[in-house]
Protein backbone atom coordinates (compact mmCIF):
# COMPACT_ATOMS: atom_id res chain seq x y z
CA UNK A 1 0.00 0.00 0.00
CA UNK A 2 1.40 3.39 -0.92
CA UNK A 3 0.10 6.90 -0.79
CA UNK A 4 0.28 9.58 -3.52
CA UNK A 5 0.31 13.35 -3.34
CA UNK A 6 -3.40 13.61 -3.90
CA UNK A 7 -4.18 11.32 -0.95
CA UNK A 8 -1.64 13.15 1.21
CA UNK A 9 -3.39 16.39 0.42
CA UNK A 10 -6.71 14.82 1.52
CA UNK A 11 -5.22 13.59 4.78
CA UNK A 12 -3.43 16.87 5.42
CA UNK A 13 -6.81 18.54 5.03
CA UNK A 14 -8.37 16.21 7.60
CA UNK A 15 -5.45 16.86 9.97
CA UNK A 16 -5.58 20.63 9.32
CA UNK A 17 -1.91 20.77 8.42
CA UNK A 18 -0.76 22.74 5.41
CA UNK A 19 1.77 20.84 3.28
CA UNK A 20 3.50 23.27 0.93
CA UNK A 21 4.58 22.43 -2.66
CA UNK A 22 8.22 22.41 -1.57
CA UNK A 23 7.54 19.90 1.23
CA UNK A 24 5.31 17.58 -0.81
CA UNK A 25 8.06 15.37 -2.32
CA UNK A 26 9.79 14.72 1.00
CA UNK A 27 6.52 14.08 2.81
CA UNK A 28 5.43 11.59 0.15
CA UNK A 29 8.75 9.75 0.27
CA UNK A 30 8.90 9.53 4.05
CA UNK A 31 5.25 8.60 4.58
CA UNK A 32 5.61 5.81 2.05
CA UNK A 33 8.67 4.56 3.90
CA UNK A 34 6.67 4.36 7.13
CA UNK A 35 3.73 2.71 5.37
CA UNK A 36 6.05 0.06 3.94
CA UNK A 37 7.26 -0.65 7.48
CA UNK A 38 3.69 -0.92 8.76
CA UNK A 39 2.82 -3.21 5.86
CA UNK A 40 4.77 -6.04 7.55
CA UNK A 41 1.73 -6.53 9.76
CA UNK A 42 -0.18 -7.98 6.82
CA UNK A 43 2.10 -11.07 6.77
CA UNK A 44 0.40 -12.37 9.91
CA UNK A 45 -2.99 -14.04 10.03
CA UNK A 46 -4.95 -12.37 12.81
CA UNK A 47 -8.38 -13.60 11.78
CA UNK A 48 -9.40 -15.04 15.17
CA UNK A 49 -7.49 -12.60 17.37
CA UNK A 50 -9.40 -10.16 19.54
CA UNK A 51 -8.11 -6.59 19.19
CA UNK A 52 -6.33 -5.19 22.25
CA UNK A 53 -7.07 -1.52 22.79
CA UNK A 54 -5.45 -1.18 26.16
CA UNK A 55 -2.56 -2.63 28.16
CA UNK A 56 -4.70 -3.54 31.13
CA UNK A 57 -8.17 -4.96 31.25
CA UNK A 58 -9.85 -2.16 33.18
CA UNK A 59 -13.25 -0.54 32.97
CA UNK A 60 -13.89 3.18 32.89
CA UNK A 61 -14.40 4.41 36.45
CA UNK A 62 -17.35 6.69 37.19
CA UNK A 63 -17.56 9.45 39.77
CA UNK A 64 -20.16 11.82 41.18
CA UNK A 65 -20.81 14.83 38.97
CA UNK A 66 -19.44 17.50 41.24
CA UNK A 67 -16.97 20.38 41.04
CA UNK A 68 -13.51 19.16 42.01
CA UNK A 69 -11.28 21.74 40.33
CA UNK A 70 -10.77 25.30 41.44
CA UNK A 71 -11.44 28.11 39.00
CA UNK A 72 -8.23 28.95 37.13
CA UNK A 73 -9.81 31.17 34.48
CA UNK A 74 -7.66 34.18 35.30
CA UNK A 75 -4.54 32.08 34.90
CA UNK A 76 -5.73 30.29 31.76
CA UNK A 77 -7.11 33.12 29.65
CA UNK A 78 -3.83 35.02 29.27
CA UNK A 79 -2.40 31.87 27.62
CA UNK A 80 -4.67 32.32 24.61
CA UNK A 81 -3.31 34.16 21.57
CA UNK A 82 -6.32 36.51 21.46
CA UNK A 83 -9.07 37.12 24.03
CA UNK A 84 -11.57 39.86 24.73
CA UNK A 85 -13.80 40.09 27.83
CA UNK A 86 -13.15 36.46 28.78
CA UNK A 87 -13.83 35.15 25.27
CA UNK A 88 -11.46 33.41 22.86
CA UNK A 89 -11.36 35.45 19.67
CA UNK A 90 -11.14 33.72 16.25
CA UNK A 91 -11.77 35.02 12.73
CA UNK A 92 -15.44 35.51 11.97
CA UNK A 93 -17.08 32.21 10.99
CA UNK A 94 -20.73 33.19 10.45
CA UNK A 95 -21.62 36.21 8.34
Amino acid at each position, binding site marked *: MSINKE*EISKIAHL*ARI*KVSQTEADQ*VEKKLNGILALIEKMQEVDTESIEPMSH*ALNITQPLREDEVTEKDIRDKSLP*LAPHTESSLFIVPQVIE
Partner: protein
Amino acid sequence: MLNLSLKELSQALGEKKFTSVELTQFFLNRVKKHNPSLNAFITVDEDRSLAMAEKSDQLIQRGKKSILTGIPIAQKDIFCADEWKTTCGSKMLENFISPYDATVIKKFNDVGAVNLGKTNMDEFAMGSSNETSYFGPVKNPWSLDCVPGGSSGGSASAVAARLTPAATGTDTGGSIRQPASLCGFTGLKPTYGLVSRYGMIAFASSLDQAGPMAISAEDCGLMLDVMTGHDSKDSTSINRKKENYTDSLDEDIKGLRIGVPKEFFEDGLNADVQKVVEEALKQYEKLGAKIVNISLPNNHLSIPAYYVIAPAEASSNLSRYDGVRYGYRTKEYDDLTEMYFKTRQEGFGDEVKRRILIGTYVLSAGYFDAYYLKAQKIRRLISDDFKVAYEKCDVIMGPSAPSIAFKSGEKQEDPLAMYMQDIFTISTNLAGLPAMSIPAGFVDGLPVGLQLIGNHFEEANILNAAHIYQKNTDWHLQNPKGIG
Protein backbone atom coordinates in the same frame (compact mmCIF):
# COMPACT_ATOMS: atom_id res chain seq x y z
CA MET B 1 27.53 16.35 46.92
CA LEU B 2 28.41 15.35 43.37
CA ASN B 3 28.37 11.58 43.63
CA LEU B 4 26.13 10.95 46.62
CA SER B 5 23.10 8.69 46.22
CA LEU B 6 19.63 10.02 47.04
CA LYS B 7 19.75 8.17 50.35
CA GLU B 8 23.13 9.69 51.21
CA LEU B 9 21.98 13.17 50.19
CA SER B 10 18.89 12.75 52.35
CA GLN B 11 20.96 11.63 55.29
CA ALA B 12 23.38 14.55 54.92
CA LEU B 13 20.48 17.00 54.78
CA GLY B 14 19.03 15.43 57.93
CA GLU B 15 22.37 15.69 59.71
CA LYS B 16 22.64 19.34 58.62
CA LYS B 17 25.93 18.73 56.80
CA PHE B 18 24.57 21.10 54.17
CA THR B 19 21.24 22.77 53.51
CA SER B 20 18.87 22.22 50.61
CA VAL B 21 19.67 25.75 49.45
CA GLU B 22 23.39 24.89 49.32
CA LEU B 23 22.69 21.60 47.58
CA THR B 24 20.36 23.21 45.05
CA GLN B 25 22.86 26.02 44.38
CA PHE B 26 25.59 23.42 43.85
CA PHE B 27 23.60 21.70 41.10
CA LEU B 28 22.35 25.01 39.63
CA ASN B 29 26.01 26.00 39.28
CA ARG B 30 26.72 22.76 37.45
CA VAL B 31 23.81 23.42 35.14
CA LYS B 32 25.12 26.93 34.47
CA LYS B 33 28.56 25.55 33.69
CA HIS B 34 27.64 22.60 31.49
CA ASN B 35 24.27 23.38 29.95
CA PRO B 36 25.74 25.58 27.19
CA SER B 37 27.48 22.49 25.77
CA LEU B 38 24.87 19.83 26.65
CA ASN B 39 21.59 21.77 26.13
CA ALA B 40 19.92 19.44 28.63
CA PHE B 41 17.60 22.08 30.11
CA ILE B 42 14.98 24.21 28.37
CA THR B 43 14.02 26.22 31.46
CA VAL B 44 16.10 27.00 34.53
CA ASP B 45 14.67 29.37 37.13
CA GLU B 46 17.24 29.82 39.90
CA ASP B 47 15.09 32.06 42.09
CA ARG B 48 12.15 29.71 42.02
CA SER B 49 14.26 26.59 42.68
CA LEU B 50 16.08 28.29 45.55
CA ALA B 51 12.77 29.49 47.03
CA MET B 52 11.57 25.87 46.99
CA ALA B 53 14.83 24.80 48.63
CA GLU B 54 14.37 27.40 51.37
CA LYS B 55 10.93 26.01 52.14
CA SER B 56 12.36 22.50 52.25
CA ASP B 57 15.04 23.66 54.68
CA GLN B 58 12.27 24.93 56.95
CA LEU B 59 10.56 21.53 56.76
CA ILE B 60 13.84 19.85 57.69
CA GLN B 61 14.33 22.32 60.57
CA ARG B 62 10.88 21.46 61.90
CA GLY B 63 11.67 17.75 61.66
CA LYS B 64 9.09 17.21 58.93
CA LYS B 65 11.40 15.47 56.56
CA SER B 66 10.77 12.54 54.26
CA ILE B 67 13.40 10.92 52.10
CA LEU B 68 13.34 13.31 49.10
CA THR B 69 12.79 16.52 51.09
CA GLY B 70 15.25 19.16 49.93
CA ILE B 71 16.65 17.12 47.04
CA PRO B 72 16.73 18.74 43.59
CA ILE B 73 15.00 16.76 40.83
CA ALA B 74 14.99 17.84 37.16
CA GLN B 75 11.59 17.49 35.48
CA LYS B 76 11.08 16.53 31.85
CA ASP B 77 9.39 19.44 30.09
CA ILE B 78 6.38 17.23 29.32
CA PHE B 79 5.06 17.66 32.88
CA CYS B 80 2.90 20.70 33.52
CA ALA B 81 4.28 22.58 36.53
CA ASP B 82 2.30 25.47 37.95
CA GLU B 83 3.66 28.83 36.74
CA TRP B 84 6.61 27.14 35.01
CA LYS B 85 7.05 27.36 31.28
CA THR B 86 6.08 23.93 29.91
CA THR B 87 6.97 23.50 26.24
CA CYS B 88 7.03 19.76 25.46
CA GLY B 89 9.99 20.62 23.21
CA SER B 90 7.69 22.37 20.72
CA LYS B 91 7.38 25.79 19.16
CA MET B 92 3.64 25.22 19.63
CA LEU B 93 4.06 25.63 23.42
CA GLU B 94 7.10 27.93 23.38
CA ASN B 95 5.39 30.47 25.65
CA PHE B 96 3.01 28.20 27.52
CA ILE B 97 3.06 28.87 31.28
CA SER B 98 1.23 25.99 32.91
CA PRO B 99 -1.67 27.08 35.12
CA TYR B 100 -1.55 23.87 37.20
CA ASP B 101 0.63 21.02 38.44
CA ALA B 102 0.75 17.54 36.93
CA THR B 103 0.15 14.87 39.59
CA VAL B 104 3.79 13.75 39.30
CA ILE B 105 4.96 17.33 39.95
CA LYS B 106 2.52 17.72 42.84
CA LYS B 107 3.74 14.52 44.46
CA PHE B 108 7.36 15.72 44.36
CA ASN B 109 6.28 19.15 45.67
CA ASP B 110 4.29 17.56 48.49
CA VAL B 111 7.36 15.78 49.86
CA GLY B 112 9.46 18.95 49.55
CA ALA B 113 11.64 17.93 46.61
CA VAL B 114 13.07 20.89 44.68
CA ASN B 115 12.25 21.41 41.01
CA LEU B 116 15.70 22.04 39.48
CA GLY B 117 14.32 22.96 36.07
CA LYS B 118 12.60 21.61 32.96
CA THR B 119 14.61 19.30 30.73
CA ASN B 120 14.88 19.20 26.97
CA MET B 121 13.14 16.47 24.98
CA ASP B 122 12.15 15.40 21.49
CA GLU B 123 9.16 17.44 20.34
CA PHE B 124 6.03 15.97 21.96
CA ALA B 125 8.25 12.99 22.95
CA MET B 126 8.50 11.85 19.32
CA GLY B 127 12.07 10.79 18.66
CA SER B 128 14.96 8.60 19.80
CA SER B 129 17.84 11.08 19.60
CA ASN B 130 16.55 14.34 21.09
CA GLU B 131 17.16 16.02 17.74
CA THR B 132 13.51 16.90 17.05
CA SER B 133 13.34 19.43 19.91
CA TYR B 134 12.46 22.98 18.81
CA PHE B 135 14.99 24.11 21.42
CA GLY B 136 17.93 22.39 19.75
CA PRO B 137 19.55 18.97 20.08
CA VAL B 138 20.85 17.61 23.39
CA LYS B 139 24.39 16.22 23.58
CA ASN B 140 25.59 13.02 25.19
CA PRO B 141 28.03 13.83 28.05
CA TRP B 142 30.09 10.71 27.19
CA SER B 143 30.80 12.16 23.74
CA LEU B 144 29.53 15.56 22.66
CA ASP B 145 29.44 14.32 19.04
CA CYS B 146 26.80 11.77 19.97
CA VAL B 147 23.09 11.87 20.74
CA PRO B 148 21.84 11.11 24.26
CA GLY B 149 18.92 9.07 22.94
CA GLY B 150 15.33 10.14 23.29
CA SER B 151 12.80 11.26 23.86
CA SER B 152 13.84 11.97 27.48
CA GLY B 153 17.28 13.10 26.23
CA GLY B 154 17.57 16.22 28.38
CA SER B 155 16.87 14.32 31.60
CA ALA B 156 19.30 11.62 30.42
CA SER B 157 22.13 14.03 29.66
CA ALA B 158 21.53 15.89 32.95
CA VAL B 159 21.60 12.73 35.09
CA ALA B 160 24.65 11.29 33.29
CA ALA B 161 26.61 14.55 33.63
CA ARG B 162 25.46 14.90 37.25
CA LEU B 163 23.79 18.24 36.61
CA THR B 164 21.02 16.85 38.83
CA PRO B 165 20.90 13.98 41.35
CA ALA B 166 17.91 12.51 39.49
CA ALA B 167 15.24 13.35 36.93
CA THR B 168 11.86 12.29 35.61
CA GLY B 169 11.15 10.94 32.16
CA THR B 170 8.33 9.44 30.17
CA ASP B 171 8.38 6.29 28.06
CA THR B 172 5.92 5.60 25.23
CA GLY B 173 8.13 3.25 23.18
CA GLY B 174 11.46 3.36 25.00
CA SER B 175 11.96 7.03 25.85
CA ILE B 176 13.33 6.36 29.35
CA ARG B 177 15.22 3.10 28.72
CA GLN B 178 16.98 3.86 25.41
CA PRO B 179 18.48 7.16 26.68
CA ALA B 180 19.36 5.42 29.98
CA SER B 181 21.24 2.85 27.91
CA LEU B 182 22.97 5.44 25.70
CA CYS B 183 23.95 7.71 28.61
CA GLY B 184 24.83 5.03 31.18
CA PHE B 185 22.46 5.33 34.12
CA THR B 186 19.38 3.62 35.57
CA GLY B 187 15.89 4.30 34.21
CA LEU B 188 12.57 2.62 34.86
CA LYS B 189 9.29 2.58 32.98
CA PRO B 190 6.57 1.38 35.37
CA THR B 191 3.57 -0.81 34.60
CA TYR B 192 1.01 1.14 32.58
CA GLY B 193 -1.37 2.87 35.00
CA LEU B 194 0.96 2.87 38.03
CA VAL B 195 1.96 6.55 37.72
CA SER B 196 -0.71 9.16 37.02
CA ARG B 197 -0.70 10.74 33.56
CA TYR B 198 -2.64 13.80 34.77
CA GLY B 199 -0.85 16.91 33.57
CA MET B 200 1.64 14.91 31.53
CA ILE B 201 1.25 16.20 27.98
CA ALA B 202 -0.30 13.37 25.98
CA PHE B 203 1.42 11.64 23.05
CA ALA B 204 -0.07 8.11 22.82
CA SER B 205 -2.37 7.73 25.81
CA SER B 206 -2.57 3.93 25.87
CA LEU B 207 1.25 3.68 26.01
CA ASP B 208 2.57 6.79 27.82
CA GLN B 209 3.99 6.19 31.27
CA ALA B 210 6.20 8.34 33.53
CA GLY B 211 9.16 6.98 35.46
CA PRO B 212 12.37 7.78 37.33
CA MET B 213 15.83 8.35 35.80
CA ALA B 214 18.70 8.20 38.28
CA ILE B 215 22.09 6.69 39.03
CA SER B 216 21.00 3.48 40.69
CA ALA B 217 18.11 1.08 41.17
CA GLU B 218 17.91 2.21 44.79
CA ASP B 219 17.49 5.84 43.69
CA CYS B 220 14.81 4.81 41.17
CA GLY B 221 12.99 2.86 43.89
CA LEU B 222 12.98 5.88 46.20
CA MET B 223 11.56 8.06 43.43
CA LEU B 224 8.99 5.45 42.47
CA ASP B 225 7.80 5.41 46.10
CA VAL B 226 6.87 9.07 45.61
CA MET B 227 5.57 8.93 42.02
CA THR B 228 3.10 6.03 42.23
CA GLY B 229 -0.42 5.89 43.62
CA HIS B 230 -4.00 5.98 42.44
CA ASP B 231 -5.20 9.30 41.02
CA SER B 232 -8.87 9.94 40.32
CA LYS B 233 -7.81 12.63 37.82
CA ASP B 234 -6.45 9.94 35.47
CA SER B 235 -9.13 7.46 34.42
CA THR B 236 -6.47 4.85 33.56
CA SER B 237 -4.74 5.13 36.94
CA ILE B 238 -4.77 1.76 38.70
CA ASN B 239 -6.58 1.60 42.01
CA ARG B 240 -4.49 -0.82 44.02
CA LYS B 241 -2.64 -0.76 47.32
CA LYS B 242 0.48 1.40 47.18
CA GLU B 243 3.63 -0.70 47.34
CA ASN B 244 7.02 0.04 48.78
CA TYR B 245 9.79 -0.27 46.18
CA THR B 246 12.84 -0.21 48.43
CA ASP B 247 12.06 -2.76 51.15
CA SER B 248 12.94 -5.80 49.05
CA LEU B 249 16.00 -4.38 47.23
CA ASP B 250 18.48 -6.56 49.12
CA GLU B 251 16.64 -9.86 48.82
CA ASP B 252 18.68 -12.79 47.61
CA ILE B 253 18.30 -13.55 43.90
CA LYS B 254 19.45 -17.17 44.10
CA GLY B 255 17.23 -19.26 41.88
CA LEU B 256 15.84 -16.24 40.02
CA ARG B 257 14.78 -17.48 36.59
CA ILE B 258 15.97 -15.05 33.91
CA GLY B 259 14.24 -15.47 30.57
CA VAL B 260 16.44 -14.53 27.63
CA PRO B 261 14.43 -14.09 24.41
CA LYS B 262 16.35 -15.29 21.38
CA GLU B 263 14.68 -12.62 19.25
CA PHE B 264 16.50 -9.92 21.23
CA PHE B 265 19.80 -11.23 19.89
CA GLU B 266 18.80 -11.36 16.25
CA ASP B 267 17.19 -8.16 15.07
CA GLY B 268 20.07 -5.87 14.20
CA LEU B 269 21.89 -6.08 17.53
CA ASN B 270 25.43 -4.70 17.44
CA ALA B 271 27.91 -7.55 18.10
CA ASP B 272 29.92 -5.66 20.72
CA VAL B 273 26.75 -4.65 22.57
CA GLN B 274 25.72 -8.30 22.51
CA LYS B 275 29.00 -9.30 24.20
CA VAL B 276 28.44 -6.80 27.02
CA VAL B 277 24.88 -8.05 27.56
CA GLU B 278 26.04 -11.69 27.58
CA GLU B 279 28.72 -10.78 30.12
CA ALA B 280 26.07 -9.22 32.35
CA LEU B 281 23.96 -12.37 32.11
CA LYS B 282 27.01 -14.42 33.16
CA GLN B 283 27.39 -12.11 36.15
CA TYR B 284 23.78 -12.87 37.08
CA GLU B 285 24.51 -16.58 36.86
CA LYS B 286 27.43 -16.08 39.24
CA LEU B 287 25.01 -14.37 41.60
CA GLY B 288 22.83 -17.47 41.62
CA ALA B 289 20.29 -16.75 38.90
CA LYS B 290 19.31 -19.32 36.28
CA ILE B 291 19.15 -18.54 32.56
CA VAL B 292 16.08 -19.84 30.72
CA ASN B 293 15.82 -19.64 26.95
CA ILE B 294 12.51 -18.13 25.88
CA SER B 295 10.95 -16.80 22.71
CA LEU B 296 8.95 -13.67 21.92
CA PRO B 297 8.08 -14.70 18.34
CA ASN B 298 6.11 -11.56 17.45
CA ASN B 299 8.64 -9.02 18.68
CA HIS B 300 9.58 -8.06 15.11
CA LEU B 301 5.98 -6.87 14.65
CA SER B 302 6.16 -4.46 17.58
CA ILE B 303 7.56 -1.56 15.54
CA PRO B 304 4.99 -1.87 12.71
CA ALA B 305 2.11 -2.12 15.22
CA TYR B 306 3.50 0.76 17.28
CA TYR B 307 3.77 3.03 14.22
CA VAL B 308 0.05 2.56 13.68
CA ILE B 309 -1.18 2.78 17.28
CA ALA B 310 1.05 5.60 18.55
CA PRO B 311 0.50 7.96 15.57
CA ALA B 312 -3.25 7.19 15.63
CA GLU B 313 -3.50 8.21 19.26
CA ALA B 314 -1.16 11.18 18.67
CA SER B 315 -3.22 12.50 15.77
CA SER B 316 -6.19 12.64 18.10
CA ASN B 317 -4.31 14.02 21.12
CA LEU B 318 -2.54 16.73 19.13
CA SER B 319 -5.72 18.02 17.52
CA ARG B 320 -6.03 20.29 20.56
CA TYR B 321 -3.25 22.55 19.23
CA ASP B 322 -5.38 24.81 17.10
CA GLY B 323 -4.11 28.27 18.01
CA VAL B 324 -7.31 29.20 19.83
CA ARG B 325 -7.08 28.54 23.57
CA TYR B 326 -3.33 28.40 24.16
CA GLY B 327 -0.06 27.97 22.33
CA TYR B 328 1.23 29.29 19.04
CA ARG B 329 -0.98 31.05 16.49
CA THR B 330 0.22 31.98 12.99
CA LYS B 331 0.60 35.69 12.32
CA GLU B 332 -1.34 36.18 9.08
CA TYR B 333 -4.60 34.53 8.09
CA ASP B 334 -7.83 35.44 6.33
CA ASP B 335 -10.20 32.97 7.89
CA LEU B 336 -10.49 30.31 10.58
CA THR B 337 -9.50 27.40 8.33
CA GLU B 338 -6.37 29.15 7.13
CA MET B 339 -5.53 29.97 10.74
CA TYR B 340 -5.69 26.28 11.68
CA PHE B 341 -3.66 25.13 8.66
CA LYS B 342 -0.86 27.64 9.04
CA THR B 343 -0.75 27.45 12.85
CA ARG B 344 -0.19 23.71 12.70
CA GLN B 345 2.19 23.88 9.72
CA GLU B 346 4.40 26.43 11.49
CA GLY B 347 3.96 25.27 15.10
CA PHE B 348 4.82 21.57 14.66
CA GLY B 349 8.16 20.14 13.52
CA ASP B 350 8.56 17.63 10.66
CA GLU B 351 8.51 14.42 12.73
CA VAL B 352 5.39 15.47 14.63
CA LYS B 353 3.61 16.36 11.38
CA ARG B 354 4.61 13.03 9.83
CA ARG B 355 3.12 11.14 12.74
CA ILE B 356 -0.08 13.18 12.73
CA LEU B 357 -0.47 12.49 9.00
CA ILE B 358 0.19 8.74 9.44
CA GLY B 359 -2.22 8.63 12.36
CA THR B 360 -4.90 10.45 10.41
CA TYR B 361 -4.39 8.08 7.48
CA VAL B 362 -4.67 4.82 9.46
CA LEU B 363 -7.82 6.07 11.19
CA SER B 364 -9.48 7.37 8.02
CA ALA B 365 -12.46 5.71 6.38
CA GLY B 366 -11.50 2.60 4.44
CA TYR B 367 -8.18 2.05 6.21
CA PHE B 368 -9.28 1.59 9.82
CA ASP B 369 -9.65 -2.22 9.65
CA ALA B 370 -6.52 -2.83 7.57
CA TYR B 371 -4.29 -0.74 9.81
CA TYR B 372 -5.66 0.26 13.18
CA LEU B 373 -7.65 -2.88 13.99
CA LYS B 374 -4.87 -5.05 12.59
CA ALA B 375 -2.34 -3.30 14.83
CA GLN B 376 -4.54 -3.87 17.87
CA LYS B 377 -4.73 -7.57 17.06
CA ILE B 378 -0.95 -7.74 16.76
CA ARG B 379 -0.72 -5.91 20.06
CA ARG B 380 -2.66 -8.84 21.55
CA LEU B 381 -0.23 -11.36 19.99
CA ILE B 382 2.75 -9.50 21.42
CA SER B 383 1.15 -9.27 24.85
CA ASP B 384 0.28 -13.00 24.79
CA ASP B 385 3.92 -13.85 23.97
CA PHE B 386 4.93 -12.33 27.32
CA LYS B 387 2.22 -14.29 29.16
CA VAL B 388 3.61 -17.54 27.76
CA ALA B 389 7.17 -16.47 28.58
CA TYR B 390 6.40 -15.64 32.21
CA GLU B 391 5.21 -19.19 32.78
CA LYS B 392 8.87 -20.19 32.46
CA CYS B 393 10.71 -17.24 34.05
CA ASP B 394 10.52 -14.48 36.67
CA VAL B 395 12.21 -11.67 34.78
CA ILE B 396 13.19 -11.16 31.14
CA MET B 397 16.57 -9.71 30.25
CA GLY B 398 18.29 -8.53 27.09
CA PRO B 399 19.71 -5.39 25.51
CA SER B 400 17.91 -2.06 26.02
CA ALA B 401 18.98 -0.65 22.66
CA PRO B 402 20.52 -2.22 19.54
CA SER B 403 23.61 0.00 19.59
CA ILE B 404 25.67 2.46 21.61
CA ALA B 405 25.04 6.20 21.19
CA PHE B 406 25.26 7.20 17.53
CA LYS B 407 26.60 10.41 16.01
CA SER B 408 24.39 13.50 15.95
CA GLY B 409 22.74 13.90 12.56
CA GLU B 410 23.47 10.30 11.53
CA LYS B 411 19.85 9.11 11.50
CA GLN B 412 18.08 12.45 11.42
CA GLU B 413 17.03 12.19 7.78
CA ASP B 414 16.12 8.52 7.99
CA PRO B 415 13.05 8.02 10.22
CA LEU B 416 13.04 4.24 9.70
CA ALA B 417 16.62 3.81 10.98
CA MET B 418 15.69 5.97 13.95
CA TYR B 419 12.58 3.89 14.69
CA MET B 420 14.74 0.73 14.92
CA GLN B 421 16.35 2.15 18.07
CA ASP B 422 13.24 0.99 19.95
CA ILE B 423 13.18 -2.59 18.62
CA PHE B 424 13.76 -4.05 22.13
CA THR B 425 11.68 -1.59 24.13
CA ILE B 426 8.39 -1.08 22.28
CA SER B 427 6.89 -4.51 22.95
CA THR B 428 6.78 -3.86 26.70
CA ASN B 429 4.86 -0.60 26.16
CA LEU B 430 2.35 -2.45 23.99
CA ALA B 431 1.94 -5.08 26.73
CA GLY B 432 1.98 -2.47 29.54
CA LEU B 433 4.84 -4.20 31.39
CA PRO B 434 7.38 -2.57 33.71
CA ALA B 435 10.96 -2.49 32.40
CA MET B 436 14.23 -0.83 33.22
CA SER B 437 17.68 -0.22 31.80
CA ILE B 438 20.82 -0.46 33.93
CA PRO B 439 24.45 0.22 32.94
CA ALA B 440 26.27 -3.03 32.10
CA GLY B 441 29.51 -1.98 30.44
CA PHE B 442 31.06 0.01 27.61
CA VAL B 443 31.81 -0.30 23.91
CA ASP B 444 34.34 2.19 22.50
CA GLY B 445 34.04 4.23 25.70
CA LEU B 446 30.26 4.59 25.38
CA PRO B 447 27.76 3.01 27.80
CA VAL B 448 25.68 -0.10 27.15
CA GLY B 449 22.43 -0.83 28.98
CA LEU B 450 20.96 -4.13 30.13
CA GLN B 451 17.18 -4.30 30.01
CA LEU B 452 15.15 -6.00 32.76
CA ILE B 453 11.47 -6.62 32.03
CA GLY B 454 9.07 -7.67 34.79
CA ASN B 455 5.55 -9.01 34.78
CA HIS B 456 2.76 -6.51 35.50
CA PHE B 457 3.24 -4.68 38.82
CA GLU B 458 6.53 -6.47 39.51
CA GLU B 459 8.62 -3.29 39.73
CA ALA B 460 9.94 -4.41 43.12
CA ASN B 461 11.29 -7.64 41.59
CA ILE B 462 13.20 -5.99 38.75
CA LEU B 463 14.49 -3.29 41.12
CA ASN B 464 15.70 -6.06 43.43
CA ALA B 465 17.48 -7.85 40.56
CA ALA B 466 19.02 -4.56 39.39
CA HIS B 467 20.14 -3.58 42.89
CA ILE B 468 21.89 -6.90 43.53
CA TYR B 469 23.75 -6.51 40.21
CA GLN B 470 24.72 -2.94 41.14
CA LYS B 471 25.99 -4.08 44.55
CA ASN B 472 28.38 -6.41 42.72
CA THR B 473 29.43 -4.16 39.83
CA ASP B 474 30.31 -0.49 39.44
CA TRP B 475 29.22 0.26 35.86
CA HIS B 476 26.49 2.58 37.19
CA LEU B 477 29.04 4.62 39.18
CA GLN B 478 31.18 5.61 36.17
CA ASN B 479 31.15 9.30 35.27
CA PRO B 480 31.84 10.74 31.83
CA LYS B 481 35.45 11.94 31.67
CA GLY B 482 34.94 15.15 29.76
CA ILE B 483 32.54 16.62 32.33
CA GLY B 484 34.29 18.22 35.30
